[in-house]
């Protein structure tokens, strides 16, 4: 159906796209090994910027904040989101339009409005009540908000992939809903739960705008630190820490590929 010449030019376009997508990242990684402080001229290979990272307390603290934030928020989001996905699946015959709108809201909401609405809300709440002053706690709340929809949709699509009669069988087998959850529901969507956790984790680590506006003075994450460093004038350590984050993403990509390979046509993305 497709002529060979069309396919060849499409292949060309593909490789141009790959260059376009990976060149900016490659440049960051390349200059992280630069021996001089320049992002235009590469002199020789060195690891000095990586060595400087370990000594930088601010970077280490931000890294800690990023990880704590990502882990705590992902755990909460996986629990709440899976429950939600399950409810969406069991009662998909009913009119759940309002729920669908609610789920899409955090996905489509512009980050900046999301972040600023949370900031003003938390600032107001803390001035009224004394709780929820901006910091890691409020950041967890905000992150869970944008993670829930992704988890719910992943769980939902995994449930759709299951044989619907299994649910009736499980109902006959296990009397209590908790037994059903423990012996049937959770085991049968385990791969989806793992990928939902990883996705939530990545979303949290990746997020800049919402974190930026909900962060307190003592809770800056890695992206916030990098942002600040770029604005103040680039230091080459930024290349090094950014390269480590790119490496982490590459590892996540390989894991995700291994998962899709082993699961065949897994319903989750």
């Amino acid at each position, binding site marked *: 159906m497709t002529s060979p010449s069309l396919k060849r030019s499409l292949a060309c*376009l593909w490789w141009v796209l790959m260059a376009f997508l990976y060149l900016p990242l490659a440049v960051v990684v390349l200059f992280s090994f630069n021996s001089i402080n320049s992002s235009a001229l590469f002199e020789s290979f060195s690891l000095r910027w990586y060595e400087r990272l370990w000594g930088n307390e601010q970077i280490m603290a931000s890294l800690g904040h990023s990880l704590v934030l990502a882990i705590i928020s992902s755990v909460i989001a996986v629990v709440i989101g899976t429950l939600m996905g399950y409810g969406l699946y069991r009662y998909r015959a009913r009119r759940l339009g309002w729920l669908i709108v609610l789920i899409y809201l955090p996905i489509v909401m512009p980050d900046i409005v999301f972040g600023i*609405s*949370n900031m003003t809300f938390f600032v107001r709440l803390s001035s009224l009540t004394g709780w929820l002053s901006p910091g890691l706690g409020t950041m967890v709340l905000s992150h869970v908000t944008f993670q*829930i929809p992704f988890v719910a949709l992943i769980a939902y699509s995994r449930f759709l992939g299951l044989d619907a009669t299994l649910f009736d069988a499980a109902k006959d087998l296990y009397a209590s809903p908790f037994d059903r959850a423990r012996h049937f529901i959770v085991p049968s969507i385990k791969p989806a739960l793992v990928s939902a956790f990883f996705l939530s984790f990545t979303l949290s680590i990746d997020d800049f705008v919402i974190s930026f506006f909900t962060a307190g003075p003592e809770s800056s994450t890695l992206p916030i630190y990098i942002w600040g460093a770029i604005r103040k004038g680039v230091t080459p350590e930024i290349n090094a820490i950014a390269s480590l984050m790119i490496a982490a993403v590459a590892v996540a990509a390989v894991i995700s590929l291994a998962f899709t390979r082993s699961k065949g046509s897994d319903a989750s993305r």
Partner: protein
Amino acid sequence: MSKRPFERSVRQLRFRETRHLLLTTLPGAFWIVLFLVLPSLYLVSMAFLTNGTYGQPSLPLTFDAFRQLAGFGFLGWSPGNLYTLLRSLWQTVVATALVVVIAYPIAYYITLCRQSLRPIMLLLVVVPSWTNQVIRAFGWMNLLAPDTPLSNLAQSLGLIAPHMGLFPSSFAVTLGLIYNFLPFMVLPLYAAFEKLDTTLVEAARDLYASPLKAFWVAVFPQTLPGLLAGIVLVAVPAFGMYVVPELLGGGRSLMIGNLVASQFAGGSNWPYGAAASLLMLVATLLGIFLLRRLGRRAGGGEEVVI
């Protein structure tokens, strides 16, 4: 008479189901309402307040913020804000159009490749968007800065003045937007191409349609749901982009997201920032509405989106 117990048990079952539905979905729904819907309403309500002396919103209720958004300030009308709005719209339209032009053939190409290669190819398209957007913008800053190969090339072609870089510029902003949102277009388009019914194309060819005509009547309509989903997924977040114009625009080609942020970051004028946020929210809700409406009409499901 004998219907009574039956009816009651149906009602009981219905009640149990509703309780179960609420038990499972309420925690998530409650969370989103509490930490997104309420804050947004609070923010939006601020747009109708007056800007207080200390940058804090206060009574009375006015439309001042909206008048200011339209360009009416202390010194009469000025077009600055309208430029920002138009620039946001223009950047969104250009970036979305270019993303479509790139993603459409790419999505088609992926479906041409071997089944076993496709997940890897999709992953390769998506992986850059997993890295932090600040880092991505930083990568482009490095690539497009003065005295880099790309900037030198542009200089020798006479596209930019000597000793200038391709960054900061509105060109860099467009590039950054395309880079950020390309995967959002490739994924739904790929889903549409994968489901493509090729017998229609054969039928069109059998009826002596030219390749172009065959594409137009047999392929394009089938990919339309994916295309529309992609356009909404790209255009809505592109319109509200904050990081890319801030870093790659170098403070000169700001978009509405930056306008909002500057009103809050400096604490200068919250009602004004809230009015601009309201505008962005309206655009967002319109986007969701369109997506659902078009998705339903085109018969595509929600699965196109994720």
